């Protein structure tokens, strides 16, 4: 019997030594089966023919089986390939870890650089996410709009109670229109009296801005009725502090402004969008008189658009109503339009440019950091050419080598990302410590899931972006040449090479950053120099409120304040004590339309001006000059004809260059204007903040414009803060139940008003300096590399008599050439980029030549310093050694 094995060509076995041959395997296996069966059949006495036929019959369709096995084999190969890939990646990863561990210096520098960039970006992104991106906490956040009335002459105003009432009944496309306004209240009966900010809100306010209450309930329709019982919803902050998170608070009475209010609920902490959120809510409960008011624009209105209704449609519907209102109530100063914007925009719109500028700046820092790491990788690529060449000679394809190097750079970026999260934790903590109250929703920024995803994506993108080019560089070399050359790297610092391009780019990015920071600093300096129109040094201010329950009449209020002023006057060191209804910069005055005599308030629109009440000595206390006429005196008492003092801006606006003394103006006229005589003109104060132009002002004798709260202003020759305890004691001596709040020096008031710009400036300067440091490292790196590559040449030059100075200068010139190119590009880029700062700077142009030139100079000096070290090293080269080494 011939052994079938001998039919098989022997070489096939050796073929399989190299790689498996699945098709051959299949046919071998089936042939073995058939031959074995034939052999068995023969042994039972069949003829050869019969044996073959019987075997085939018993086996079935050989072709079908073969096809089926072929497809099963393919299936298996895909699985095998996937497993193999996973193994390759794991193997590359292990290799990459070994490579990075082998050069700890490189790895540390690269990881720390990336951690700085990724960490700073993550921290800023968490702030951006918290402030701008995350949805408002309310149930239907995407359907909420802030609704205001368009004003005659442009702009928008709060809504009159009357118009709001009409809106509510005629806007079926809104599921809720919530009206609310601020109110100042004194909480008594629980330790020291507290002056608190509360909202008066309608029941629909809660339906629009709904988050389930922590305890109890919010207002219902019953609380909208005038004369409804006094109830109050506490904020989480007030409940957890003053009421020690009392779980049985609902149903208990508290005393606000001397009246008892029953607590009906506690709102969750999420209602505190800003650091100046209300402490509690009481019902708005509009009276019939208020509902008939169509000229006093007091209410803020938030609308919840009905589900399925487009916001513009709902606004259009409201606009139709508003046109009728403008026709029916011509004194309302409304132009018949509705100004509506998404509620989120109204909450964070003002800080969006600031946040985006910071985000952009930190992005530039990351780019510079990536540039540095890429440069390190390029340097490494040069060093590793031999290794790569050997691996490639051993049969590794280029794709495989690039993949290996990319895995290394992604691993590097991943490490940078992990360390970067740590940097972000610290950075965010520091950021929150200095975060100003003026940036809403920043105070509860955290490193949450979206922020971590951002960090991961940034790290991965960095790894790929800065890894691809060096990987292509490292693998795209002529194998033979590299191996023949040995370890010498032929590439030098040549213009246009990737490494120089990188450094030039880094310098230009750093310049953009520094110009931005420089403009903000210049703006801060300009603000510092602005005269506020009064002397803020040596002033102590405080807010005092007289509760209605114990000071019910105008005369009792006036007498009360009089006693307080006298008491404070006797405080040692108090040189001058006066009252003003609203302290400038600390609070806005009452904004009112103002007309000059001869104008008909019914026909002509007037000039916007603040109304403030003040004592006669207020201007002297503030050291604001009296320019014409007189201030108030003892004769300006209730009952006497009301006189006013106006500021220079308003005088100029209404009367031009003519003398306004003795002429008359009317404010907030309504249908029956009250004309008041002007007795004096005073200098302008920047009452809205140093960065804002002085508003028009009308001052009334405070005894004739009685309000239950006022600001106390004390001029002293002592350090003003030292007077605070004595002033508090003096007020308590008059009435221990009076809340004294906001006790601070005027300098502090001004500093608070600049907290947000200060915050932006500080951050941008920090980012600018980080960018500068990274760019300096980049310059240093490439110049040091230049020196090491040119050691031979430098040796030759020195051997031929070149001076140390000359060599040093040659190296320095290299550094300055790179920096100069970067500065030139950066200046052009800055001119475009600084437009983003337009709304954030004061008193400097976005193309301020001083800043541009100064920053360019700083960068060139830093570049020179960064080149000095390698330049010095170049002069220390021993010519002999350098020549021998080359």
């Amino acid at each position, binding site marked *: 019997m011939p*052994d079938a094995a001998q039919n*098989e060509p022997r070489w096939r076995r050796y073929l399989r030594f190299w790689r498996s041959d699945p098709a051959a395997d299949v046919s*071998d296996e089936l042939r073995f089966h058939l031959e074995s*069966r034939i052999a068995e059949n023969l042994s039972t006495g069949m003829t050869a023919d019969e044996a073959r036929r019987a075997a085939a019959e018993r086996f*079935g369709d050989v072709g079908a089986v073969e096809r*089926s096995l072929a497809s099963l084999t393919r299936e298996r190969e895909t699985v095998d390939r996937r497993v193999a890939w996973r193994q390759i990646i794991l193997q590359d990863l292990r290799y990459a870890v070994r490579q990075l561990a082998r050069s700890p210096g490189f790895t540390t520098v690269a990881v720390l650089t990336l951690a700085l960039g990724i960490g700073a970006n993550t921290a800023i992104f968490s702030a951006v996410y918290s402030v701008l991106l995350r949805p408002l906490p309310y149930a239907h956040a995407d359907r909420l709009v802030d609704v205001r009335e368009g004003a005659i002459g442009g702009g928008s105003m709060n809504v009159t109670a009357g118009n709001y009432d009409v809106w509510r009944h005629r806007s079926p496309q809104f599921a809720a229109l919530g009206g609310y306004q601020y109110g100042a209240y004194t909480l008594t009966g629980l330790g020291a009296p507290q002056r608190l900010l509360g909202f008066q809100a309608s029941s629909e306010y809660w339906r629009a801005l709904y988050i389930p209450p922590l305890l109890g309930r919010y207002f219902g329709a019953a609380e909208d009725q005038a004369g409804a019982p006094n109830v109050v919803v506490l904020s989480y902050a007030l409940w957890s502090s003053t009421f020690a998170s009392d779980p049985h608070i609902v149903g208990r009475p508290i005393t606000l402004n001397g009246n008892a209010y029953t607590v009906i609920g506690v709102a969750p902490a999420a209602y505190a969008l800003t650091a100046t959120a209300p402490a509690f809510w009481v019902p708005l409960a509009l009276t019939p008189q208020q509902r008939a008011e169509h000229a006093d624009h007091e209410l803020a209105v938030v609308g919840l658009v009905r589900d399925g209704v487009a916001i513009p449609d709902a606004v259009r519907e409201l606009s139709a109503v508003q046109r009728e209102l403008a026709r029916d109530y011509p004194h309302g100063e409304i132009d018949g339009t509705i100004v509506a914007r998404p509620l989120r925009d109204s909450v964070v719109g003002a800080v969006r440019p600031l946040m985006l500028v910071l985000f952009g700046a930190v992005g530039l820092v990351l780019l510079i950091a990536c540039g540095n790491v890429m440069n390190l990788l390029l340097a490494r690529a040069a060093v590793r050419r031999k290794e790569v060449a050997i691996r490639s000679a051993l049969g590794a394809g280029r794709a495989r080598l690039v993949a290996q190097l990319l895995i290394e750079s992604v691993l590097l970026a991943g490490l940078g990302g992990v360390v970067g999260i740590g940097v972000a934790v610290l950075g965010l903590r520091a950021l929150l410590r200095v975060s100003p109250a003026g940036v809403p929703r920043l105070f509860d920024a955290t490193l949450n899931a979206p922020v971590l995803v951002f960090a991961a994506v940034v790290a991965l993108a960095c790894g790929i972006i800065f890894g691809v080019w060096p990987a292509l560089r490292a693998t795209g070399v002529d194998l033979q040449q590299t191996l023949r050359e040995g370890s010498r790297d032929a590439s030098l610092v040549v213009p246009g090479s990737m490494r120089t391009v990188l450094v030039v780019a880094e310098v230009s990015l750093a310049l953009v950053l520094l110009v931005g920071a420089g403009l903000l600093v210049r703006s801060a300096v300009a603000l510092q120099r602005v005269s506020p129109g009064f002397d803020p040094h040596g002033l102590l201010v405080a807010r005092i409120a007289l509760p209605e329950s114990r000071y019910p009449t105008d005369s009792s209020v006036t007498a009360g304040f009089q006693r307080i002023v006298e008491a404070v006057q006797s405080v040692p060191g108090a040189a001058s004590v006066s009252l003003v209804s609203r302290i400038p910069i600390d609070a806005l005055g009452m904004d009112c339309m103002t007309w000059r005599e001869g104008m008909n308030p019914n026909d002509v629109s007037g000039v916007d001006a603040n109304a403030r009440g003040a004592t006669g000595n207020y201007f002297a206390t503030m050291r604001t000059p009296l320019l014409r006429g007189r201030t108030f005196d003892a004769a300006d008492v209730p009952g006497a004809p009301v006189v006013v003092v106006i500021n220079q801006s308003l005088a100029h606006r209404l009367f031009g260059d003519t003398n306004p003394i003795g002429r008359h103006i009317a404010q907030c006229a309504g249908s029956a204007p009250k004309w008041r005589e002007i007795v004096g003109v005073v200098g302008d104060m920047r009452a809205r903040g140093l960065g804002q132009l002085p508003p028009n002002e009308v001052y009334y004798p405070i005894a004739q414009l009685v309000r239950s709260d006022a600001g106390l202003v004390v001029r002293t020759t002592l350090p003003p803060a030292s007077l605070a305890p004595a002033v508090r004691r003096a007020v308590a001596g008059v009435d221990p139940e009076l809340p004294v709040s906001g006790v601070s020096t005027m300098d502090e008031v001004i500093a608070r008003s600049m907290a947000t710009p200060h915050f932006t400036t500080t951050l941008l300067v920090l980012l600018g300096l980080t960018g500068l440091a990274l760019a300096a490292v980049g310059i240093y790196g490439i110049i040091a590399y230049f020196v090491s590559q040119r050691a031979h040449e430098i040796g030759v030059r020195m051997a031929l008599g070149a001076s140390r100075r000359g060599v040093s200068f040659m190296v320095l010139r290299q550094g300055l050439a790179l920096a100069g190119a970067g500065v030139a590009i950066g200046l052009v880029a800055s001119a475009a980029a600084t437009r983003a700062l337009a709304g954030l700077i004061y008193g400097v142009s976005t193309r301020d030549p001083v800043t541009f030139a100064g920053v360019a100079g700083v960068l060139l000096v830093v570049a020179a310093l960064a080149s000095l070290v390698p330049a010095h090293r170049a002069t220390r080269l021993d010519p002999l050694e350098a020549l021998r080494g080359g």
Partner: protein
Amino acid sequence: MEPGSVALLQGTLDVIVLKTLSWGPMHGFGIARWIQQTTDDALRVEEGSLYPALYRMENRGWVRSQWRMTDNNRRAKYYSLTASGRRQLEAQCSSWSAFSLAMSRIMDATRQPA
């Protein structure tokens, strides 16, 4: 297929092959021969269908294969059970026992339905 032989379902063939391999590594022809001898040729497996079953089980990781020399010095592909194949066999065995017990109870039933 000849009369008297039993048609086999896919899963059944798998169990038979697993059971066969539980004695030790065997090549495809060996498996066919074992089935033939054990069942007295009652289960006439179309021998070609053994191989797709073997390949499929190899893809699933129930068996693994290896080329080896037979006793008379020929190259043949031997299949053996993997740990997961053994677990599979155990699971199949118990469900088969339960099934065949139930079947025989029905077939041997002496009471007519009420």
